[in-house]
């Protein structure tokens, strides 16, 4: 029984009719000039009226989506006279965020002699890391090299990446893979141990390591298990998001104020160094886009680091994943992994024709899908499929994978996808998926240095909350890599910092200064931030 309504099935028949021919067809990739043109015309980042330039703080003028600007310019949860005299807990290193970046940082800080507290918003592991399917890049095959990886990263990022950060990323990559293996992660391998590696959008070599299509989950649960094994040194506190950083009277990081999500009580956790690893902000739904991100992805880290004086960067570009589920409505916006295209799956329009090279860099691929669906009057091609609820999309032809790679490939390589669509009566081994771009990744964030440090002494950073590694566009597989590379680096640096720092009196003077600056600039967005969770309740 097909889960698609009859109108959509009609278009599926066209997809089926062209399939045998399309196997032999490769749609040509775009030149750099063509890429630029399509981005300008169709990518959401280029809609000037949806952006806001910050009016206060150290990165005044930084552009970002209006929804994000509103909360970055928001009011604090607590007042500057909050009592810091009796901390709820004290530690060497406070890690904020229980995703892959935070877990890596906690492990390395502990290995380097620190006592660690890890606070997180929801459960430990309720994080974007858990949701990553495709894989993690590392140049470890003989036909590949860190230098080739470097070029791919920089080109994908439109040549705006910070070179030293890219260097750290690509040179640490093989070591991270080994580290994960040693912790017991199960990578996909040939019987002789050779890693099975695939292409991703914008890669010139196959270097995507995977663990079926639970790559992020496998990383996350392995790291989490290891953190739990070190419970003598690492204390995990769940349902306690940080709402403000605390500095000492010399402006060095001295811990954070956390809120008990269930009781609403705020308390101070004192620390000699802080690692911020709070992930991205997909749940802010820029320009009304649905998102692939987990429930707690509300850009909290950007908000609190900025108030403490850390510069931001690259937030004028967000990543819209080209293939979010567009049908059925219940899973709108959820990710259809790029691996589907890596395995040979093709995007095709309502007529069953290809219209884009399947593995362009993500921003280009997303813009091409938007153009294919946009009406002709707006310069689009008007060749999308429209669902009964009015959602446009194009087909992602998955059954073709089995014709290329043999029957059974999909079930083996994409079990999570098979299951997700199967729950709604769609068998992706036999029928294509309907897809449309979805808000996926925060390319920018808090600026960092190769050792994980920031502008604020004692504040370290790792993962999606940071900005600079990926320039203006991240390639798939470089984010799981980033969180482990910089998680490890920031954990190590934080431990070292905690051993040499002399902390002064803890203070919220920066919060007082922030309130003053907002007042003087006449900025009042009416929001208390970080917002911690989106509000999806219905307001009658």
């Amino acid at each position, binding site marked *: 029984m097909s889960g698609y309504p009859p109108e959509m099935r009609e278009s599926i028949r066209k997809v089926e009719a062209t399939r045998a021919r399309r196997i032999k067809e490769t749609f040509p990739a775009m030149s*750099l000039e063509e890429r630029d043109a399509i981005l300008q015309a169709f990518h959401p980042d280029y809609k000037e009226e949806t952006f806001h330039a910050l009016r206060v703080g150290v990165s005044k003028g930084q552009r970002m989506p209006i929804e994000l600007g509103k909360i970055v310019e928001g009011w604090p949860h607590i007042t500057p006279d909050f009592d810091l005299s009796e901390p709820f807990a004290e530690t060497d290193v406070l890690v904020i965020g229980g995703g892959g970046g935070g877990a890596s940082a906690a492990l390395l800080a502990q290995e380097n002699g620190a006592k660690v507290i890890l606070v997180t918003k929801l459960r430990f592991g309720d994080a974007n890391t858990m949701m990553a399917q495709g894989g993690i890049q590392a140049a470890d095959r003989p036909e590949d090299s860190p230098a080739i990886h470097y070029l791919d990263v920089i080109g994908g990022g439109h040549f705006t990446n910070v070179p030293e950060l890219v260097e750290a990323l690509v*040179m640490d990559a*093989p070591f991270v893979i080994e580290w994960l293996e040693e912790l017991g992660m199960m990578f996909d391998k040939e019987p002789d*141990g050779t890693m099975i590696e695939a292409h991703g959008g914008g890669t010139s*070599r196959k270097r995507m390591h995977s663990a079926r299509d639970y790559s992020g989950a496998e990383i996350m649960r392995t790291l989490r298990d290891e953190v739990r094994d070190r419970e003598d040194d690492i204390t995990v506190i769940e349902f306690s998001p940080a709402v403000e950083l605390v500095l000492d009277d010399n402006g060095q990081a001295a811990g954070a104020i956390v809120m008990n999500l269930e009781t609403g009580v705020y308390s101070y956790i004192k620390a000699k160094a802080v690692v911020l690893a709070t992930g991205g902000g997909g749940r802010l739904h820029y320009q009304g886009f649905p998102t692939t991100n987990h429930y707690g992805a509300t850009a909290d880290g950007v908000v609190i680091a900025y108030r403490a004086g850390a510069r931001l960067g690259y937030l004028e570009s967000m990543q819209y994943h080209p293939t979010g589920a567009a049908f059925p409505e*219940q899973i709108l916006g959820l990710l259809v992994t790029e691996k589907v295209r890596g395995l040979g799956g093709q995007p095709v329009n309502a007529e069953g024709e290809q219209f884009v090279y399947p593995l362009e860099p993500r921003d280009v691929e997303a813009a091409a899908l938007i153009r294919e669906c946009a009406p002709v009057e707006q310069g689009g091609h008007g060749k999308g499929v429209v669902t009964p609820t009015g959602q446009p999309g194009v087909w992602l032809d998955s059954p073709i994978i089995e014709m290329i790679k043999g029957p059974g490939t999909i079930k083996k390589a994409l079990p999570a996808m098979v299951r997700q669509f199967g729950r709604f009566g769609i068998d992706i081994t036999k029928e294509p998926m309907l897809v449309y771009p979805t808000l996926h990744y925060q390319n920018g964030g808090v600026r960092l240095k190769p050792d994980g440090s920031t502008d604020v002494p004692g504040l370290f950073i790792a993962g999606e909350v940071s900005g600079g590694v990926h320039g203006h566009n991240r390639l798939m597989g470089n984010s799981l890599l980033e969180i482990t590379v910089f998680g490890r680096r920031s954990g190590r640096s934080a431990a070292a910092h905690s051993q040499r720092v002399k902390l002064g009196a803890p203070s919220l003077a920066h919060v007082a200064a922030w309130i003053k600056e907002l007042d003087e600039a006449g900025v009042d967005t009416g929001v208390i931030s970080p917002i911690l969770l989106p509000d999806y*309740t219905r307001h009658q």
Partner: protein
Amino acid sequence: MAEQQDNLIPIYIMGKQYMVPSTLTIMKAMEWAGYKLIRGVGCRGGFCGACATVYRIMGDPKLYFGLACQTVVQPGMYLAQIPFFPAQRATYDITKLEPTATTLFSIYPEVLRCLGCGACSKACPQEIDVRAYMAAGMRGDIAAVADISFDCIMCGLCASRCPAEEAQYNIAILARRLYGRYLAPRSQHLQERLKEIRAGKFDAELEELKGLSKDELVARYKARDIEPK
């Protein structure tokens, strides 16, 4: 969010009735009813296991299990979430273990208490044959436990149903880590690459790349040869 008012159906959240649109998932229906979720929600995409839910349909004595973020509501659904289950977890140092049956039995002796009743398999929202991996565990077949349990999202539903008080998913992750670290064949090319990096083989090339102007980088980028699919 779905705002359409058509076709409202009754569901019962912890015993209290709410009318919700019939097309929503359990999670979205709870939000539609006015719950701002804190517990029992995480990824919203079927990957984190935070939203384990037990339900019954009115008039049907059978218990059903699912993920609130992945299951569509049905009329007369009585539901309760299990956002947390107090299952036993051992701590261990993975670097000091041997990948043997003895290790598994000494860390989780209760493996051997499994009755083979299959209640766990029936409850698993990932359709994993939990009983089968527990049986493999009793045989000490670590590779089989690792393979069969691979898609586990650690939601806890199996443990909540187990008459033998097993913590299946914690046993399973121990097996997977033992497999990944000790039993899976190591990758030779990875070791080679690590040696090369340690020996500084790529340092000069990286140094050069870092120093290039944007135009030079663009030229290099365009000239890359792309490995065929």
